[in-house]
C-alpha cells in the first residue's frame, strides 16, 4: 500500500490570466506520505494546490490521481475522486452552524453513505467541534475555525488532503494541537500534502518536501536531506533564527 504513487504531476505550466505562475512542475505523492511544499509568498504553492483541486487548469503537462487522468476535471469531480483541500484562510461558511459546515463537507455523493461514521471520527479528533456544533461558525476562535475547516475536509472521506497555511495567525499551543491531529489523520491512512510558512517546523513534521521559488521547484528531497542542505540553511534558517 505504501510507496504506491497516489498523485503524479508531470511537467505542468499554469497561468493566472497572462501571468505564468507555475513552470514545468513535477511532483509525486505516495500513499501514506506527509509531504510539504515550502517557499515564500507568491512562489506558487497555493497555485499548485488550486490546480490539483481543479480550480485552475494547466495549459501543459498532466496530472494523474490513483491512475485517473485529472488534468481537465472540475473541482467537484476532483472531490468525488477523493482529494479535498483545506484552503488558506480556512474559508469556513461564516453564517452557517458548525454542524451545517461539516454537513456541506460531505456534500459529494462519495461521502454521503459514510457521513455518520465520519462525523463521529471528526468529533473524536476535535471534541470542541462537538461541543460547539450548534454555534454559528464565524463566532468560533481562529484555532477552532481551523479545526472546523480540517474537519469539514475530512467529511468528504478523502484519500488525499491538501492543507494550505494551516498555522497562519494561530498561537503555538494550538499549532501543536493541530499537528497532532494531522498525525492522527495520517494514521487513518489519509495522505497529506501541506503548505507552511515555518520551514523548520515543516521539515520536522513532513517526510519529504519540495521547495518552490518563483513558480519552479528548486529543490526536493526527504526532510532530513533538506535539513542539511546549505542552500536551505542559508535561505530559510538564517532568517528563521533571527526572527526567533
Amino acid at each position, binding site marked *: 500500500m505504501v510507496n504506491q504513487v497516489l498523485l503524479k504531476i508531470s511537467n505542468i505550466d499554469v497561468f493566472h490570466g497572462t501571468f505564468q505562475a507555475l513552470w514545468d512542475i513535477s511532483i509525486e505523492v505516495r500513499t501514506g506520505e506527509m509531504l510539504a511544499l515550502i517557499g515564500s509568498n507568491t512562489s506558487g504553492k497555493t497555485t499548485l494546490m488550486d490546480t490539483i*483541486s481543479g*480550480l485552475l487548469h494547466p495549459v501543459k503537462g498532466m496530472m494523474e490521481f490513483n491512475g485517473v487522468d485529472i488534468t481537465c476535471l*472540475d*473541482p*467537484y469531480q476532483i*472531490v*468525488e475522486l477523493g482529494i*479535498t*483541500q483545506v*484552503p488558506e484562510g480556512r*474559508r*469556513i*461558511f*461564516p*453564517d*452557517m452552524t458548525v454542524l*451545517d459546515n461539516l*454537513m*456541506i*463537507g460531505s*456534500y*459529494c455523493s462519495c*461521502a454521503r453513505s459514510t457521513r455518520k461514521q465520519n462525523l463521529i471520527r471528526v468529533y473524536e479528533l476535535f471534541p470542541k467541534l462537538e461541543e460547539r456544533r450548534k454555534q454559528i461558525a464565524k463566532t468560533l476562535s481562529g484555532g477552532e475555525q481551523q479545526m472546523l475547516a480540517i474537519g*469539514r475536509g475530512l467529511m*468528504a472521506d478523502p484519500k488525499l488532503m491538501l492543507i494550505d497555511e494551516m498555522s497562519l495567525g494561530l498561537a503555538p499551543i494550538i499549532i501543536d494541537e493541530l499537528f497532532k491531529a494531522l498525525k492522527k489523520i495520517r494514521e487513518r491512512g489519509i495522505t497529506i500534502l501541506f503548505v507552511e510558512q515555518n520551514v523548520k517546523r515543516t521539515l520536522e513534521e513532513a517526510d519529504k518536501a519540495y521547495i518552490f521559488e518563483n513558480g519552479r521547484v528548486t529543490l526536493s528531497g526527504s526532510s532530513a536531506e533538506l535539513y542539511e542542505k546549505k542552500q536551505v540553511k542559508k535561505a530559510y534558517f538564517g532568517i528563521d533564527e533571527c526572527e526567533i
Partner: protein
Amino acid sequence: MNDILTPILMGIMLGGLYALISLGLSLLFGVMRFINLAHGDFVILGSYLGYGILTYFGFDPVIGLVISVPLMFGLGFLIQKYLMSRAFEVSSDTPLIIAFGLSLIIQNANQIAWTPLSRGINTGYSNASFFIGSLQFPVVYLLDLLVGILVMLLLREFLTRTYLGRAITAASQDKKAAELMGINSKRVYGYAFAIAMALTAIGGVFLGMTFPFTPTSGISFLTIAFGTVIIGGLGSMWGTFIGGIILGVMQTLGGYFFGPASQMLVVYLIVLIILAVRPQGLFGR
C-alpha cells in the same frame, strides 16, 4: 385617525407581495453577486402567464401556477446555462448588458402577445373584501401577505434543510470553498436561476391580482424589488420582508397624501435616496 390606518394596514399587506417579488432577485444576488436587470420583466411575464391561463383555460391563476412555475423554472435554467454562464466569462459588464437586452425582449414579446393595453387578473375573489373593525380591505391584499410569508418560510426551509438548498447557501457564502467541498457551482447557479424564476412566477400572479399591469410595468417592479432588497439588507429574509413592508407603507401613504398618481414616484424617490445615503441597506453592515 381611522383614515390613515387604512393605507398603513394596506401597505403592510402589500409588503408581503413586495417581499414575494423580491425573493428571486435577492436569491440571485446572494448566489451570483448579480442583480438581474430583467427581473421586473420576468415578474410581469409571470403575471401574463397567470392572466393567459385564466383567460384561455379558465383555471384559477393560483392553480395555474402548476403550469407557470415549472415553465419559468425551465426558462430560468436555460437562460443561466446558455446565456448568463457564458456572459460571466466575458466581462463583469456583459451580464448586465445581456440582462438589459433580455428585459427589452420580454417587454416586446409581452406586447406582441397581449397588446400594450393594461391588464389585470380578475378572479371570483378579486373584488371580495374583509373587515378589520370598521375598515374594509380587499381579500387579495390579505392573500399577498399570507402567501408572501408562506413562500418565504418555504424557501428558508429549502435553503437550510435540503442538499441543493445547502449547496446554494454555501455557494452564496463562499464560492471557492463551496467548490472545494465538491459543489458543482455551474449546476448550483443553474438551479438558483431556475428557482429565482419560479419564485418570480408566483410573485407575478399575485401582483397581477393586486395591480393592473402593462408590458412596460417591469421597470417599476424591478425598482420595487431592488428597493425592498437594499432596504432589508442582502441575504436576510426577514430584512427583505421588512423592506417590503416599508416600501408598501410608503407607497400607500404617498397615494394617501399626494394622490394615487404619485404613489410610484414616492417609491422611486425613496429608493434613490436610500441608494444615495445607505447603499448597503438600512439593516446592512
